């Protein structure tokens, strides 16, 4: 892990809590429940947000949005954390800023479905209610 990414992970851990930090460390992404708990977002570094139905797992949309610091990419954990904080704080503003695409535009749908299963499995293993409760 590069020093900037290590530092970014320290900040992430202090902000998001153990469940999401563990997901990032183990899986490389997190899941953030929407203001409406019927849907959630897979949050990857440098990739679009993938919205999905929390009951059925159906993929709903991709929201392409990025954060660059004077044209340079943030460390991966900072990119994820910036999306996490924006979704928690100003979800609709973030979504309004993003480019909307159908599922599968950039993120392989099978990959996204597997990731939904992986995050659910992680939640089950840790006894966390996961995306159902915010």
């Amino acid at each position, binding site marked *: 892990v590069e020093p900037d990414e290590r*530092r970014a992970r320290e900040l992430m851990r202090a902000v*998001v809590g153990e469940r999401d930090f563990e997901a990032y460390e183990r899986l490389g992404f997190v899941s953030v*429940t929407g203001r409406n708990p019927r849907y959630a977002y897979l949050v990857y570094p440098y990739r*679009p947000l993938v919205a999905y139905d929390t009951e059925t797992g159906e993929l709903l949309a991709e929201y*392409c949005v*990025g954060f660059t*610091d004077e044209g340079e990419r*943030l460390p991966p954990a*900072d990119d994820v954390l910036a999306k996490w*904080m924006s979704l928690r704080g100003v979800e609709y503003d973030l979504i309004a800023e993003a480019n909307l695409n159908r599922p599968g535009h950039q993120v392989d749908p099978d990959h996204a479905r597997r990731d939904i299963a992986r995050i659910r499995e992680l939640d089950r293993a840790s006894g966390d209610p996961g995306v159902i409760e915010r």
Partner: protein
Amino acid sequence: MKLVRMRSGHGDVLLAEGDPEVAEDEERLIEEFRRQLDRGMWAAVPLAGRARREARMVRDFTEVPRDAERVVFFPRAAGG
């Protein structure tokens, strides 16, 4: 309270630190807060929610809880 900013190639960088109950510190924190927003940064205050951690986006220093541990500045989102 710490004001930190995400930076490419660095992770977060400490911008200012102080006790907002101390007038001199508060003045310094407010000055740095405004400087970052003037540069187009977004500002978030991490909060410990009931079941989950939360984040509150703030646009003025008066919106920052006095007991907040940190304010995180990061570049505005842009459609990709």
